């Protein structure tokens, strides 16, 4: 146990309470101070396992400190600081608290040395992220938040099932290399895969992130998927399935991004595309590829947050985010435009920007592994990134047609946050060595060779030439005010279909039972017991009449019986009949038992 420090993430989580209570400048100072304090606390921990807690004859490890967890811890703290700076003027208890808990849970998850601690932080992330989506308080955001929550609860159950089986199989809760093989390993793999937004399991991401609050989307873009990247890099390095999953992830979202109108949804698809490169790196499993995955996650968190911040600023200032509604905003928001272009250049991997020094490691690792098809798919996706994130985002929002919107530039805290992220994107791009020195394995990778710079610049600038020619010739597809179906159609429409099915079958059954029992049966019983002796005789006469066929005789006897009942001149009293019936039923029950 380390006495002079706290478990990583705990400071951020506990700091949510004052963040929800404080107001004004005090809260602002607190929001900036807490990530810095938490980072210092984290860096004070030496390598090794700390904060060990006994748990049902097992040992929970709240802080497993090594090179892999520290590099994720550092970038999570940096982005928590930037996102808090961006959200400095947001006076919303829920968002302020949820953002800190979310960041703290993500930090806690990457330092968790056992599966139970990991699961607790994993679910804490789900809950806090849901608040960041619902905090926008629109009908759409509430529904999207609910869908997000349901998907992650299901994946969390899958993960929990896997963890319980894994502990049963291996006898330990320690979280380390798992690899595919047993049922438990597959369940954990899929649980991690949902958070990584694998193909067909990805639908929650472009559904929920664009509906989050302006500042919430910045937090969301950083933590959930990158925590999943971390756990996969920890537990499943060298798993071949991840190569193909990742390759598919790099390619399919870019087609959706091309035709998407909502610019924050474009960024969501782009996020999946970038995580695809990280998956390929984990799947290859060499030191170079894992370094590439980690460095790309580091760079990606910064430039993706920067892009979400710039689009968030557009949404914040104009109230609009569709490409068809905005345009020409470089006049009103020149600083936001400049920062957005830095983010776009970084994600496109232009030389001197951060994406260039990280993505090329994964590409090189794929080439060295002779993965030709995967390499081609990633090269295609690299050209595709230029379209939707490199060109479409800044062009649609700040240039393109003049929407006529003349708004104020984004508030100063937002500009400072974007400026800081942009500076880091350029800083990493120009001086990659500090980032390389943090990576899990030592590396002497040299991104800046003349040949590499020229080939990458050719790839991107000739793709840009295609854009320019298509735009000038009028063949470039227009932005259309519409939505595009994705796999979420199954959950949205499937949910409705299930509702209708339940409505028509279960409710119909309920109605029938209500009518039959509450109304018909009760009425008949009540009628019977109003004149039970008479009714018993009536039933008897009917039976006799059916057997004998003499209806006139039956009618005569029935009217005589009814008259006796009404005058109380019946040979057998009602009370006696009820007592006999009761005793008969009781006897039958006793005999049966």
């Amino acid at each position, binding site marked *: 146990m380390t006495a002079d420090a706290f478990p990583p993430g705990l400071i951020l989580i506990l700091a949510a309470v004052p963040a929800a209570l404080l107001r004004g400048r005090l809260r602002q100072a607190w929001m900036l101070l807490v990530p810095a304090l938490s980072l210092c606390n984290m860096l004070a921990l030496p390598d090794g396992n700390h904060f060990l807690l006994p748990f049902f004859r097992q040992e929970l490890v709240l802080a497993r400190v090594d090179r892999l967890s520290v590099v994720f811890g550092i970038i999570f703290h940096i982005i928590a600081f930037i996102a808090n700076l961006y959200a400095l003027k947001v006076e919303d208890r829920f968002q302020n608290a949820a953002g800190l808990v979310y960041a703290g849970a993500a930090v806690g998850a990457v330092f968790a040395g056992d599966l139970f601690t990991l699961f607790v932080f994993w679910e804490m992330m789900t809950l806090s992220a849901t608040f960041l989506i619902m905090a926008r308080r629109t009908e759409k955001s509430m529904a999207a938040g609910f869908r997000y929550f349901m998907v992650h609860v299901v994946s969390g159950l899958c993960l929990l099932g896997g963890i319980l089986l894994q502990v049963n199989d291996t006898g330990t809760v320690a979280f380390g290399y798992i690899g595919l093989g047993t049922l438990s390993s597959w369940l954990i793999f899929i649980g991690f895969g949902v958070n990584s937004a694998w193909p067909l399991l990805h639908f929650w991401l472009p559904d929920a992130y664009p509906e989050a609050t302006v500042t919430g989307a910045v937090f969301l873009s950083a933590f959930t998927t990158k925590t999943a990247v971390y756990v996969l890099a920890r537990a499943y390095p060298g798993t071949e399935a991840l190569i193909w999953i990742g390759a598919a992830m790099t390619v399919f979202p870019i087609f*959706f991004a091309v035709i998407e109108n909502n610019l924050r949804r474009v960024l969501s698809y782009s996020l999946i595309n970038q995580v695809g490169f990280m998956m390929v790196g984990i799947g290859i499993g060499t030191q170079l590829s894992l370094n590439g995955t980690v460095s790309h996650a580091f760079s990606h968190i910064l430039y993706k947050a920067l892009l979400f911040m710039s689009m968030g600023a557009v949404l914040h200032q104009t109230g609009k985010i569709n490409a068809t509604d905005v345009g020409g905003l470089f006049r009103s928001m020149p600083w936001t435009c400049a920062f957005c272009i830095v983010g776009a250049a970084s994600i496109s991997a232009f030389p001197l920007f951060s994406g260039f020094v990280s993505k090329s490691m994964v590409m090189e690792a794929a080439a060295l592994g002779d993965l*030709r098809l995967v390499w081609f798919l990633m090269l295609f996706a690299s050209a595709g990134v230029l379209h939707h994130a490199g060109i479409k985002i800044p062009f649609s929002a700040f240039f393109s047609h003049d929407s006529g919107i003349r708004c104020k530039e984004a508030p100063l805290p937002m500009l400072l946050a974007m400026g800081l992220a942009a500076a880091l994107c350029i800083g990493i791009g120009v001086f990659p060595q500090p980032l390389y020195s943090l990576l899990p394995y030592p590396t002497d990778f040299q991104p800046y060779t003349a040949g590499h710079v020229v080939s990458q610049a050719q790839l991107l600038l*000739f793709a840009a030439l*295609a854009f320019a020619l298509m735009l000038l010739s009028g063949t470039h597809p227009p932005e259309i005010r519409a*939505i595009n179906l994705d796999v979420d159609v199954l959950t949205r429409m499937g949910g409705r279909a299930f509702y209708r099915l339940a409505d028509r079958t279960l409710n119909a059954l309920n109605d029938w039972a209500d009518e039959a029992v509450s109304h018909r049966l009760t009425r008949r019983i009540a009628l019977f017991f109003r004149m039970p002796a008479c009714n018993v005789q009536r039933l008897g006469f009917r039976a006799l009449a059916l057997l004998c066929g003499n209806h006139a005789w039956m009618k005569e006897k029935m009217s005589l019986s009814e008259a006796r009942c009404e005058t109380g001149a019946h040979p057998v009293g009602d009370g006696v009949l009820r007592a006999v019936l009761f005793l008969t039923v009781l006897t039958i029950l006793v005999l049966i038992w």
Partner: protein
Amino acid sequence: MNHNPVNPEPKRPPLIRQRTLKAMMAAFAAVLGALLLAEGWAHRHVIFPWEEWYGFYAAFGFVAYVILVFVAQYVLRPIVIRDEGYYDR
């Protein structure tokens, strides 16, 4: 004499004036040309044989972009496009 004030056409920002745009296009073309020339000079450590083909990356970037845009526009969009109120019904 007509004293009615006449609103002049608002002046275009420098960035989107025709002259600026033409200069930018010319600079862009020059950079593209320079990049093609630079390939002959810049040595690249190649892993796959096709990386040695002159202009491979330039051609790939151009063609990939065109394929991406046309497939998205003419194959994917007709399948998945719905009106904005689709999920609200």
